[in-house]
């Protein structure tokens, strides 16, 4: 019967070819669904990889302290909640903390040659923390050198000479708030547009020119060797709670202390959630494609009642009729799957290419063999499943009724 199977495929293909327009319309329905799944999943997968990679740059013995609750991150970011100097001091004094690197930034206008642009200035305690930036936060130099603490020198993110001040060169000067700084280094990409657009200078000079002396948007604490990260996270929490309650009489304190592992996990979970949502919506598109197949197949069964009767009269079994129709709907699914996958991978790759030249964030579209196999198998299955009921209704037709049908 194996030889016959090949023949049934030929018959099915001929049937589809006689209804070319309708077949293609049906296939396009599937293509759209598969295209959505493949492109969106490969993009979100790529995004996940990129974000997690960025997370991994953060050293294991680094703890992040954010004002506000992690579950309410947007409020913290938009509302400008800050850690106070008291908080920073408390963290510094906590057992197991080696030193604290506060993250302090402010938007200021910078003039380079004749161009003026608003940039984000970062105040960095070079003296204490240069080591941390290099070892734990993954900062590396593309060119130039690191700044000398206390000197009016700046280093810039990798996007600054490319996009913000095109043609900016190491060794030249820039003016911020009337003071002249020498650009001494350019960093390699840190993986996000925001980080790569930064202008970093010494904290004390930063405080001088911006007038910003209090608070930090967040802080990193480096843990002394020999202490467990989880323990120190707890110590910091306890101390901050106590200080805030005692000093300010706050009943509820709100801040988050996160180890790099915890952050990676939170971000990873969010990404998985995003992927699941994307997958859910894209699946709906495939289901719609499947309904299209079902519709076409039912119409086809209707039109071919007589043909089914003839085939039964000359010896086709119910299972044979069933098989022929299933092959037809399976072909819809498969061609739709192949087309959708090709288009999806194509779109994902072009977005990847686009981002290489116009970086918004860095990512590789990850159309893994697993995803491709999955989408092909899934669309084929959807095709077969959509054809199941139409094929069954065709196979159940009584030969007499089918032959009499006009």
């Amino acid at each position, binding site marked *: 019967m194996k030889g016959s199977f090949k023949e049934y495929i030929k018959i099915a293909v001929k049937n589809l070819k006689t209804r070319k327009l309708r077949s293609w319309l049906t296939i396009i329905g599937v293509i759209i669904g598969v295209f959505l799944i493949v492109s969106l999943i490969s993009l979100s997968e790529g995004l996940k990889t990129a974000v997690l990679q960025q997370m991994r740059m953060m050293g294991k013995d680094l703890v992040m302290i954010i004002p506000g609750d992690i579950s309410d991150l947007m409020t913290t970011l938009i509302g400008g909640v800050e850690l106070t100097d008291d908080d920073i001091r408390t963290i510094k004094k906590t057992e197991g903390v080696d030193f604290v690197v506060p993250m302090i930034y402010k938007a200021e206008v910078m003039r380079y040659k004749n161009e003026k642009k608003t940039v984000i200035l970062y105040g960095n305690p070079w003296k204490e923390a240069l080591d941390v930036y290099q070892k734990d936060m993954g900062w590396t130099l593309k060119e130039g050198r690191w700044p000398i603490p206390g000197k009016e020198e700046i280093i810039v993110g990798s996007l600054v000479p490319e996009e913000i001040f095109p043609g900016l060169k190491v060794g030249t000067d820039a003016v911020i708030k009337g003071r002249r700084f020498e650009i001494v280094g350019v960093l390699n990409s840190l993986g996000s547009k925001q980080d790569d657009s930064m202008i970093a200078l010494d904290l004390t000079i930063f405080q001088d020119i911006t007038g910003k002396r209090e608070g930090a948007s967040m802080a990193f604490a480096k843990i002394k060797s020999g202490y467990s990260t989880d323990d120190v996270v707890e110590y910091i929490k306890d101390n901050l709670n106590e200080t805030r309650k005692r000093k300010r009489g706050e009943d509820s304190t709100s801040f988050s202390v996160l180890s790099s592992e915890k952050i990676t996990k939170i971000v990873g979970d969010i990404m998985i959630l995003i992927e699941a949502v994307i997958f859910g919506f894209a699946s709906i598109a495939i289901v719609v494609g499947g309904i299209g197949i079902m519709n076409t197949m039912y119409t086809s069964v209707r039109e071919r009642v007589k043909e089914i009767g003839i085939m039964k009269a*000359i010896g086709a079994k119910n299972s*044979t009729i069933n098989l022929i129709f299933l092959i037809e709907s399976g072909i819809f699914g498969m061609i739709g799957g192949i087309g959708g996958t090709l288009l999806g991978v194509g779109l994902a790759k072009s977005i990847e290419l686009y981002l290489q030249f116009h970086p918004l964030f860095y990512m590789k579209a990850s159309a893994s063999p697993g995803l491709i196999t999955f989408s092909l198998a899934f669309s084929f299955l959807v095709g077969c499943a959509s054809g199941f009921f139409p094929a069954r209704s065709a196979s159940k037709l009584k030969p007499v009724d089918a032959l009499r049908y006009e």
Partner: protein
Amino acid sequence: MQSLIKLENVSKIFRLGEIELAVLKEINLEISSGSFVTIMGPSGSGKSTLMYLLGLLDIPSKGRILLEGSDVSKFTEDELAKFRGRKIGFVFQQFNLLPNLTALENVMLPMIFQGIDEDKRKEKALSLLNSLNLDKRINHRPSELSGGEQQRIAIARSLANDPEILIADEPTGNLDSSTGKIIMEIFEKLHSENKKTIIVVTHDPNIARYSKEVINIKDGQIVSNHLASEKVLWK
């Protein structure tokens, strides 16, 4: 001669809502191997229903149909399909070729359903088409062929699995008389030379002349069963 198909008190009743319509009433009939039978009757007489029952395309509401001694009402749908495929060849008034397939593919189709190898299939189909002078038409689709050609292809298809029985339903109904004559001569030859059992359903007395036995049916009952040579009911 041995009995090939035997109908015992066969009735076929159709239910149309509340009304029961007995299309065939208590039919008793025996068709022996190697015979050439015409079933004649006006439209609505039940002759087509009788043909469908003889061709195992339908099962009776009452009574038994014995094919070579076994009761077909006990067969599953797939067993019936297998019997039809191997033992019975059909020729229809509308030719009923599959429009998407070429002449050759149409003739090979019954053999595909029986799982016959491609080489054998092709060889057999080509020899059948040759014997019916269709060798120049093998790659044409039905829509590109004349009625007579289509009917000859249908005959070739009906012979694909070497069935013992050929059932033809108004085989000349859509053909002009000279083409019809050619078709009937083919049946005659298949009967005399190839010893096929042939059952022709028609309302046309001229067709009945080719057969050896005529069964007249009216209002679902057999009104006469006689040798064609007796020419009783020919008007």
